[in-house]
Each structure stands twice: as structure tokens, then as C-alpha cells.
């Protein structure tokens, strides 16, 4: 279909349609409303169904119902609305239902504002709802990358019977870039024998539930989930590195912030500081490999986020005390500039750590 100039939110929607998603249950919230509007127009064209729910809570539970029938289904929201979905996400994780949930994050806490933020990192990567669970989280940095990651998100969801989150910030949702969709959407559908669609001569009735009244039995169920999470950790971590082969100092950033950081890293290189960039593409599982590869020779890591310091915890765990880790962040919808990141990088390289406490 050639190249198109599209908004991030539209790309997410179109990419989902390309990945075989035919059902969308949503609720409007800025800055992801274009996604909902696009789906309302696009899904009927694609032979699917769009339904505006009465709340984010209803939307995620509609997703739960639809996911139980085995179809590819999704919902999307932004931070405050995403919080409302947490109960449903915990149930999806507990009942092992595949679905895609998009969070185009904005400034918080509370109602916050509609500017871009990355302050939902803890919420999406550490479970978010109640119970022992994790959810794969994909964090694209470009609109083209969204197309690949949405397809992978649905594949991961089906393969592991798990909900998957795509996390972007408002900037990613609102910005426009040229993108190209693959000509023939390659949809790998998995046969699902666990669905509740009416038995129709297909054996005994099936049940989808996260309830397990017996402690030993629920523990076994949890152990099963943990084995699954271990397998996801092992197989699904994704990242990208830039100039890391010979770098002394590493900026760690994801999503749109990584794109700003690239310029700071390049400028530092020009000024003789051997800087590199590690960009986690999956936030859970957090990619350990680039840190294992660099932490014994690194002189320092600088985590940059649009938050008060959340991913930096995972950086510290990954570096495991073998090098200094510092942090630079802006919050409330303020986007860090290339110059600010460069300055922090130079301070890091100079041995200074102005943000020891992450403030």
C-alpha cells in the first residue's frame, strides 16, 4: 500500500488490524482518542467490531469475554484509564487469556495532565494489579517499529496465553511519521483448544476462571505461571544498542526518550566521550544481556526517563553493583531535551553524579 504519513495512534490501530485483530473495546481518553476513533471507522471495514464501552473497567472485561472465545482482541487507554483496567488485567493474567492492552501514557499521578510521560513504568512492568504476575511490555520508539511490535505482541499473547501491553507516551501517540505496512499481513493464528465458545460436540464443557479455592492447587497454578514467566524472560527480551562496542558510558532510555538520547550520545562522541545507548524494547522482561555484556567494563550508566526514576531500578538490578548508575528525569509532561541529556552525560563522564538520589 506504499508509504503513508500517519499518527502514532493510527499506526497502532492499523497495525493491530494487520495482525488480525478484529475486536476492539475502548473508552475515549486523551492522548489516545484517535486510536479509538480510527478503530471505530476501520474495524467495520475489516469485518470486525468496535464497541465503545461505558468505562475502562467495562472495556477490559469485554476484552476478557472476547479473549475467552479465542479471537484477537484489544483495548487501549491512557494512564488514569489504564489504572482502571488493572483489575481486569489481573484476571486476564490469572485466567491466562491472550489480549493486547495499549497504554499511551500521560502525566500523573491522579488526573495529572495530557502531556507525554513514562511514569507508568512501575505499573506496567511490576504486575500492576493484584497477585503474582508479570505481563510482557513492548515499548516502540518509532512509528514503523509499532507495526512490528504489534504483530509480535499478538503472537506472544497467543504463544504464552498472556495479555501483552504496548506502552508508549503521548508524544508517540500524537506524532506523525511515514510508515509502510507489509503488503500481505502474515497472521500466525494459533489453534486454541481452551476457548469457551459453546461445546458444539467438541467434548466436555470448558471453564475459564482464575479462581482456585485450594491453597496447594493455587500454588501449583502459580508455579505454572512462574514457569511461563521464566520462559518469557528467557525468550522474549528485546533491546537495541548503539555505539556500545567500545563505550565507557551508557545512556539507558526507552521509547521516544531514546530518540532524544541518541542525539546526546552522538554529540558526546563528537566531544570525545565514548558514549553508547542501550534501548530496552521489552520493559518486561527487562533485557539483561546488554548489561551483562557491558557492566564489567562500564564506567557508568545514565538512565533517562520521563519519570521521577522508575526504570532506573531495573538498570541497577541489571548492573548489579558493578558500575555506577545515575539518573536523569523530567516529569509532569516535561520532555527532556537533547542538551539536558548531553549535560548529564558529561557530568556522568566527569565522575559527578548530581542525581545520586534520583531526584
Amino acid at each position, binding site marked *: 500500500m506504499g508509504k503513508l504519513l500517519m499518527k502514532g495512534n493510527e499506526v497502532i490501530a492499523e497495525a493491530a488490524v494487520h495482525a488480525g485483530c478484529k475486536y476492539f473495546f475502548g473508552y475515549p481518553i486523551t492522548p489516545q482518542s484517535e486510536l479509538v476513533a480510527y478503530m471505530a471507522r476501520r474495524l467495520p471495514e475489516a469485518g470486525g467490531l468496535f464497541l465503545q464501552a461505558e468505562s475502562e473497567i467495562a472495556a477490559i472485561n469485554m476484552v476478557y469475554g472476547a479473549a475467552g472465545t479465542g479471537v484477537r482482541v484489544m483495548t487501549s487507554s491512557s494512564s488514569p484509564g489504564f489504572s482502571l483496567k488493572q483489575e481486569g488485567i489481573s484476571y486476564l493474567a490469572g485466567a491466562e487469556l491472550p489480549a493486547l492492552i495499549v497504554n499511551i501514557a500521560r502525566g500523573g499521578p491522579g488526573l495529572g495532565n*495530557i502531556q507525554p510521560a513514562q511514569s507508568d513504568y512501575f505499573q506496567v512492568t511490576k504486575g500492576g494489579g493484584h497477585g503474582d504476575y508479570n505481563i510482557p511490555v513492548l515499548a516502540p520508539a518509532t512509528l514503523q517499529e509499532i507495526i512490528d511490535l504489534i504483530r509480535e505482541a499478538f503472537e506472544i499473547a497467543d504463544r504464552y496465553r498472556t495479555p501483552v501491553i504496548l506502552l508508549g507516551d503521548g508524544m508517540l501517540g500524537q506524532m506523525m511519521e511515514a510508515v509502510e505496512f507489509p503488503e500481505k499481513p502474515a497472521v500466525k493464528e494459533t489453534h486454541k483448544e481452551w476457548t469457551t465458545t459453546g461445546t458444539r460436540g467438541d467434548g466436555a464443557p470448558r471453564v475459564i476462571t482464575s479462581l482456585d479455592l485450594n491453597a496447594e492447587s493455587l500454588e501449583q497454578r502459580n508455579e505454572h505461571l512462574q514457569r511461563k514467566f521464566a520462559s518469557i524472560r528467557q525468550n522474549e527480551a528485546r533491546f537495541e544498542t548503539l555505539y556500545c562496542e567500545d563505550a565507557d558510558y551508557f545512556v539507558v532510555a526507552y521509547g*521516544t526518550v531514546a*530518540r532524544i538520547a*541518541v542525539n546526546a550520545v552522538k554529540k558526546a562522541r563528537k566531544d570525545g566521550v565514548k558514549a553508547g545507548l542501550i534501548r530496552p524494547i521489552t520493559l518486561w522482561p527487562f533485557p539483561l544481556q546488554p548489561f551483562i555484556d557491558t557492566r564489567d567494563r562500564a564506567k557508568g550508566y545514565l538512565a533517562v526517563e520521563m519519570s521521577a526514576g522508575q526504570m532506573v531500578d531495573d538498570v541497577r538490578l541489571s548492573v548489579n553493583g558493578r558500575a555506577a548508575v545515575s539518573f536523569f528525569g523530567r516529569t509532569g509532561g516535561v520532555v527532556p531535551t537533547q542538551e539536558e541529556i548531553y549535560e548529564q552525560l558529561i557530568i556522568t563522564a566527569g565522575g559527578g553524579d548530581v542525581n545520586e538520589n534520583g531526584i
Partner: protein
Amino acid sequence: MGTSARITILTGHYGSGKTELAINLAINARKNGEKVAVCDLDIVNPYFRSRDASALFREHSIKLVAPPERLATADLPIIPAEILAVVKDEESRVIIDAGGDKEGAAVLGQFFHEWKDGSLEVLFVLNASRPYVSTLDGALYTVRQIEKASRLTVTGIINNTNLGASTTIKDIQKGQDLSIMLSHKLGKPVKYTFLESSLRIEGSNLEMMSNKMMTMDRYLKLPWE
């Protein structure tokens, strides 16, 4: 600009580049010594609106009619009452940056009685690289929807076809072809074809393609640009 209309309303599919055009048209008019006001009526987009260029407007002494700064990024569909004063000011060129599609155009409907007698042009900004307006049917449908919602008739087309940094001469040509087809359907002229000034596009036949080729600067940039 060589336009006779005092008030220019920019409509189009959302993401077609209305805001950048509003900024460019305003700065050009200022350079001609005109008194200029830009009205940001975009209640659809939460980011990348005329109000985000407020410093630039101040610098060029262009009046910006937009929600007050403390509410500029509020998630509220605020239409400043001041727009009426600007629209009635016979001395002032007025450029109205409406939001995209019929949703954005509907905002214009409330001013129906204010400008029905005025000197007005309603321009449909076309970026043929955007989904839903890349075909004649799609573009025509969008125009009709906008006209219905705004209670206005489109009087001209601006070809602003681009793919951002990846724009090629083929894209602009494609947009030009579609603009001309749309122009025939509507019976309204293609007023300009815009080309971003920073693009280094090969091809000397650009001028031949349109004698109304204008270059524009891009002001609303992403933090890594």
C-alpha cells in the same frame, strides 16, 4: 499571498498540516506588512497546535487567539470569545486553524452568522499520503463531511502532500494529481502546492508541476529534530 479574502479558514483531514500552514501563511502575511491574527480552533488534537507556537507568534507580532496559556494544554474544548472581535476587525487578516475532519470542522458552525457576509476563503488542506484521503473518493467524502459539519463551502484546495522527512518528488506529484482531480470534482481551484523548505528534493520539474508552488518552514518540531 495574493489572496483577496481577508479570512482564511484551513480545514482538512487531521494531520494534513493545517497548523504548520497557518503559521507559514501568517508569517508571510506579516512580512507583507499586514495585521495578522491566527485563531487556534483545534479542539481535536491535544498536541502540536497553533498555541504551541505562541512564542513564535509573539516574535512576529502576530495575534494568537487561543485559550489562555494556563489552559493551553487543558483537555478542554475551549473556544476563546475573542475570535469574534478578530473576525469583525476589518483591518486584520485572519487565519483560522480548525481541527481535523468533521469533528474539528463542527466548531466552525457556531460562527455561521458571523462570517456569512465576510470576505472568506475556506481551504481544504490535502495530504494525499494520509490514510482516508489518499483516494479521490476518500478526499471528496472528507470535504463533504467537513462542509456539512462547518456549514461552509470549500473554496479552494491546498496540496500539502508529504511524508515528513521521507517525502519524494513522487509523493508531491501524487498529491498534485489528486488535488487536480478533486479540484475538477469540486469546481474549485488548487490554490497552492506547498513544499517544506528543508527538503532537498531532486527534480527541476517541480516548478512545471505547479505555478503556485510555495515553500514552507516547519516550526513544530519533535524533541529529537
